[in-house]
C-alpha cells in the first residue's frame, strides 16, 4: 500500500495541471486574509480604543477564534456550496477573529500615555486610534500579519479537504481515485509552498511596506473566487435547518465515547510525538551531533512539520483505514516535526557553563547529553509538550472530518447525510472542547508560572 505512494507523478502534464489548484489555494488565502483584515482591523481598533461595548466585542472575538478553521469550512461549504468560495469565506471568518483578537491585544498593550495625550487634545477616538495606536504598534502588526498570512496559506490547503477547493480538494480527489503517486506529488508541492512562504514572510518582515503588494493580490483573488451564484434563499434555509441544534438519542448515547476518542487521539498523538521527538531532537541539536547529521535530521523534521495534521490524516486513512488510529498517527507525525525542532532548540539554548564543566571532566558526548543537557533542557521541553497537547486537542476535534475518528467524524457524517441540526450540535460541542482546552492550558500555565507564550 505504502509502495503505491512511490514514485511520485512528476510528469510535466500533471505538474502543469497543478497550477490551477495551487493558484486557487494561494488566492483563497489572499482573498480570505483581505476580508479578514478589513473586518478584523477595525474591530481591533474598536476594542483598542476602549469604546463602550469593546469588552463584549473582545469576548466575541476570543470566542469566535475558538471555532476550528476546518469546522468553519464545513459550515461554509454547506451554506455556499463546494468550491474555493467556501474555503475563502471560512478563512475570512477565522482570520478576522484571529486578527481582531491578536491586534486588539497589541493595541491594549500599547503605551497608554501618548494615547491619553491625544485624547486630551480633543481628538475623536477614531483619530486617537489612527495617530496613536496604529503608529505605535505598526511593527508588531506587520509581523503578526505576516505570520497570520503564513498560517492562512496552510489553512487554505486543509479547507480544501472538506470541499473548499484548491490543493486540498485535489489531494482528496487523487486519493479517492487511488492515484497515490499524484498524492505524493501534491505533498511534495505542499512542502515546497510552505518553505517558500517562510522566506516570503522573512522578506516581508524586513520590508514591511511590501505588505501593500498583497492588497491587489487579495482583490484579484476575491474577484476570482466570488461565489458565482450567491443563493441567499438557499443559504438562509440551510442555516435555518441548523437550528435548533439537536442530537437524537443514539447520537447522545454515543457522545461520551466520541469525546473520549477525541481526547485519546490528542493524548496518544502527543505522546507518540514526544517519544519520537526526544531522539530526533537530540540528533538535530547542533551542539550534540556533527553538523551534517543535525542538518539531515532538521530537514526530516521540517518535512514532517510542513504537512498539516489533516493532510497526514488523509494519507493515513488510506494506509491504516478509517478510525482513531489514523488520527493518532497523523497528529503524531506533524507534532514530531514541531516538537523535535523545539526540543533541539531547547538543547542548544542550555547555559554553557554546566555543560563545559562536565566536558572538562572528560565525559563522553552521550554522558554530557544525559547528565548536563537533558536535565537543563527539561523545563522548556515540558512547556512545549504541554502547549502541543493543547494544540492537539483542537486538532483532534477536526481530523475526524477526513475520517480519522472522534467528534469530527461524527460532524462530517452528519453533514454528508444533510442532518444539519446534528451537524450544528457537533459544531457547538467542538467549540466547547476548544474553549475548555484553552481554559485548562491557561490555568496550568498560571499555576506553573509560565506566563510567556511559546507557540
Amino acid at each position, binding site marked *: 500500500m505504502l509502495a503505491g505512494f512511490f514514485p511520485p507523478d512528476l510528469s510535466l502534464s500533471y505538474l502543469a495541471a497543478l497550477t490551477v489548484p495551487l493558484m486557487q489555494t494561494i488566492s483563497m488565502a489572499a482573498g480570505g486574509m483581505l476580508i479578514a483584515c478589513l473586518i478584523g482591523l477595525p474591530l481591533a481598533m474598536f476594542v483598542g480604543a476602549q469604546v463602550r461595548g469593546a469588552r463584549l466585542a473582545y469576548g466575541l472575538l476570543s470566542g469566535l477564534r475558538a471555532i476550528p478553521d476546518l469546522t468553519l469550512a464545513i459550515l461554509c461549504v454547506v451554506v455556499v456550496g463546494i468550491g474555493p468560495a467556501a474555503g475563502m469565506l471560512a478563512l475570512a471568518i477565522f482570520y478576522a477573529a484571529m486578527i481582531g483578537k491578536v491586534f486588539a491585544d497589541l493595541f491594549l498593550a500599547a503605551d497608554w500615555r*501618548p494615547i*491619553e495625550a*491625544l*485624547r*486630551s*487634545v*480633543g481628538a*475623536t477616538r477614531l483619530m486617537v486610534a489612527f*495617530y496613536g495606536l496604529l*503608529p505605535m504598534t505598526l511593527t508588531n502588526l506587520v509581523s503578526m500579519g505576516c505570520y497570520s498570512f503564513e498560517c492562512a496559506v496552510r489553512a487554505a490547503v486543509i479547507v480544501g479537504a472538506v470541499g473548499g477547493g484548491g490543493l486540498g480538494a485535489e489531494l482528496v480527489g487523487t486519493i479517492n481515485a487511488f492515484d497515490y503517486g499524484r498524492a505524493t506529488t501534491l505533498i511534495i508541492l505542499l512542502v515546497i509552498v510552505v518553505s517558500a512562504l517562510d522566506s516570503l514572510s522573512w522578506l516581508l518582515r524586513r520590508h514591511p511596506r511590501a505588505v501593500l503588494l498583497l492588497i491587489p493580490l487579495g482583490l484579484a483573488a476575491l474577484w476570482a473566487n466570488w461565489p458565482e451564484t450567491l443563493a441567499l434563499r438557499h443559504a438562509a434555509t440551510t442555516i435555518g435547518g441548523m437550528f435548533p441544534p439537536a442530537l437524537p438519542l443514539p447520537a447522545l448515547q454515543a457522545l461520551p465515547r466520541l469525546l473520549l476518542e477525541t481526547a485519546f487521539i490528542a493524548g496518544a498523538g502527543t505522546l507518540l510525538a514526544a517519544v519520537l521527538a526526544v531522539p530526533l531532537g537530540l540528533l538535530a541539536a547542533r551542539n550534540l551531533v556533527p553538523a551534517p547529521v543535525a542538518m539531515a535530521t532538521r530537514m526530516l523534521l521540517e518535512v514532517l512539520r510542513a504537512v498539516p495534521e489533516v493532510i497526514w490524516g488523509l494519507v493515513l486513512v488510506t494506509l491504516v483505514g478509517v478510525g482513531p488510529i489514523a488520527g493518532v498517527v497523523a497528529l503524531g507525525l506533524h507534532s514530531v516535526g514541531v516538537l523535535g525542532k523545539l526540543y533541539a532548540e531547547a538543547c542548544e539554548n542550555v547555559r554553557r557553563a554546566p555543560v563545559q564543566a562536565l566536558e572538562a571532566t572528560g565525559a563522553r558526548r552521550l554522558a554530557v547529553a544525559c547528565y548536563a543537557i537533558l536535565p537543563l533542557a527539561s523545563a522548556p521541553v515540558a512547556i512545549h509538550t504541554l502547549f502541543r497537547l493543547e494544540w492537539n486537542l483542537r486538532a483532534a476535534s477536526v481530523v475526524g472530518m477526513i475520517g480519522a475518528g472522534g467528534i469530527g467524524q461524527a460532524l462530517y457524517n452528519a453533514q454528508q447525510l444533510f442532518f444539519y441540526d446534528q451537524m450544528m450540535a457537533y459544531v457547538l460541542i467542538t467549540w466547547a472542547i476548544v474553549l475548555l482546552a484553552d481554559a485548562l492550558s491557561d490555568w496550568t500555565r498560571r499555576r506553573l508560572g509560565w506566563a510567556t507564550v511559546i507557540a
Partner: protein
Amino acid sequence: MAPAGMLEIDKVTRRFGELTAVSEATLAIPGGQMVGIIGRSGAGKSTLLRMVNRLIEPTTGRVAFDGRDITQLRGRRLHSWRASAAMIFQQFNLVPRLDVLTNVLVGRLNRIPTTRALLKLFTARERALAIGALDRLGIADLALKRADTLSGGQQQRVAIARALMQEPRILLADEPIASLDPMNAKLVMDALRDINRRDGITVLCNLHTLDTARAYCDRIVGMAQGRIVFDGAPEALDEATVRAIYGTADRALDERITSTSIGAAALPAFARA
C-alpha cells in the same frame, strides 16, 4: 488681564474605590493667572488637573469655565472643551514613531474634519502654524525628526508646541519639569511663563517643589491628602503651612522643598517678568 476666562472648580471630589483622591476642592481662577499647585506625591494634583480636561470624571462637584458647566459636556462639545484646555505631561507623551511636525499638528485634530485627519492632509497654513510654534520654542530645526530620537527637554518643548497648536484658553501642566535636568527645566518653565504673559493664557502647573512655584507663579495652591489646604500669594506661604502641605515630622522636608531643578538660575528670569 481680561476678567473673562474664569475657571471655577466647585466642591469637586473624585473617589477611586475606597480612596478619595480629591476631596471637595474649590478654586476660582480668573483668566490669565499663572497658578502653581504643590503637594507631595499622591496629594491629588494630577487627578485635579485631569478632571479639568475631563480625562477623569469628577465623582461629585462641578467645573465651570466662563460660567459654563463643563462637567456635563458630551461628544463634540467635550472634545472642543478638551482642545481649549491643553495638557502637558511629566513624561511628554509624544507618539514615539511619528515625526515632530506630526506630533505638533496633532494638536489641531479637534478642528479638522475626520476624513482630512485620517488622510493626514494638513493645510499649508496648519503646517506653517506648527513650524511657527516649534520656532517659538527654538526647535524648528527638529521638525522632521522622529519624536523618540529627541532628548527629554526637546520632547517637552514639542509637547508645548502641540499645546500651542490647540490655541487653548488654559494650559494644564502636570509636573512638566519633573523628568528634566535643571537647564531644560528652566527652558520649559520660561516657555510656560512666556505663554502665560504674552498670550494671556491661564496656566495651571503641578509642581512638587516649592521654590519653582515661588519663582514662577502668581498664586500657589497647596494640596494634601486630596484637600486644598492653602490658596494664596507665594509670600503668604509660611513655614507652618508648608509643613501642613508636605507633611510633618519629616526630616527630608527641607531638602524636598528647596531641592529643585531650578535654583537661583530662575531668579534673573523672574526679575524680567
